[in-house]
């Protein structure tokens, strides 16, 4: 996705409002502003639609990576039973998906494995954000809506 022209600074900051997000410079040296927006939307919409708490960790994972990911998952929210952690370590080229017991009932291991497979295919092509967003979409489609919202 390329842009032909940079966005002009509109300098909208006043004493009561902060400056425009695009004027603040990169909030992150890992992902650009647009990539962060995509990740934000994917995480939030997945969490809202399924009622599970999806979080994303990008960084180094101490060996053994599975145990580190599980420890992170336990810290990820007040209710780790219903939360899903996606831990991506691009340096070690490992992705770990950890689901709590409640989340695993709705998102079985084979669905996670399918999502991980598509994520690793994207990562191998160098597309971190696209892989993560597609993996989240696949997992939220598999998990479906919470029972209370189902009308049929």
């Amino acid at each position, binding site marked *: 996705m*390329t842009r*032909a*022209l*940079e966005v002009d600074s509109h300098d909208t900051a006043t004493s009561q409002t902060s400056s425009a997000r695009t004027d603040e410079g990169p*909030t*992150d040296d*890992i992902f650009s502003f647009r990539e*962060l*927006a995509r*990740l*934000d*939307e994917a*995480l*939030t919409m997945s969490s*809202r639609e399924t009622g599970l708490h999806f*979080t*994303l*960790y*990008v*960084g*180094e994972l*101490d060996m053994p*990576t*599975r*145990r580190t990911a*599980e*420890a992170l*998952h*336990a*810290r990820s*929210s*007040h209710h*780790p039973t219903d*939360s*899903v952690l996606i831990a991506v*370590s*691009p*340096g*070690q*080229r*490992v*992705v*770990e*998906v*950890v*689901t*709590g*017991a*409640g*989340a*695993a009932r709705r998102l079985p*291991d084979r669905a*996670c*494995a399918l999502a*991980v*497979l598509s*994520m*690793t295919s994207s990562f*191998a092509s160098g597309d*971190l954000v696209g892989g993560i967003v597609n993996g989240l979409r696949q997992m939220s489609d598999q998990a479906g809506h919470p029972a209370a919202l189902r009308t049929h």
Partner: protein
Amino acid sequence: MFDLEWYLIFAGIPLAIIVILALLTLKPGANRRPRYKPGQPWNHAPVWYEPHPVHTGGHGPAPAHGPAAVPGGSGTAALGSSMYPEQPAERNTDASGAGSSHGATAHGASAAGASAHGASAHGAPEPAGPLGGARGTW
């Protein structure tokens, strides 16, 4: 016949068009951060993104506060954030390589013990039970 005027019109204008389009196309790409290639080391600090808390007044991600980036899991007030700052020992500076196996393997991890251990460190009320999920390498 082939005087300067001829060259300016029939060669200069197409060249000028091409140069302008090239600048518009190539110049923004020069500022882009380097693209990730598998196998290159990852030297950034770990970041941990969370979804927006459920009750934020009902609008979607449009307010664009960005992900609640919780660097390494430091404590914030948002619902669902981790409960204590990242421990220094958990930040691994020595990148040992991942296994060379490919493909995804499903993990019905045992982990009632492991998660209880992680949970008891800060008194989380509920263990996450038998953990599931998957892992993959590339």
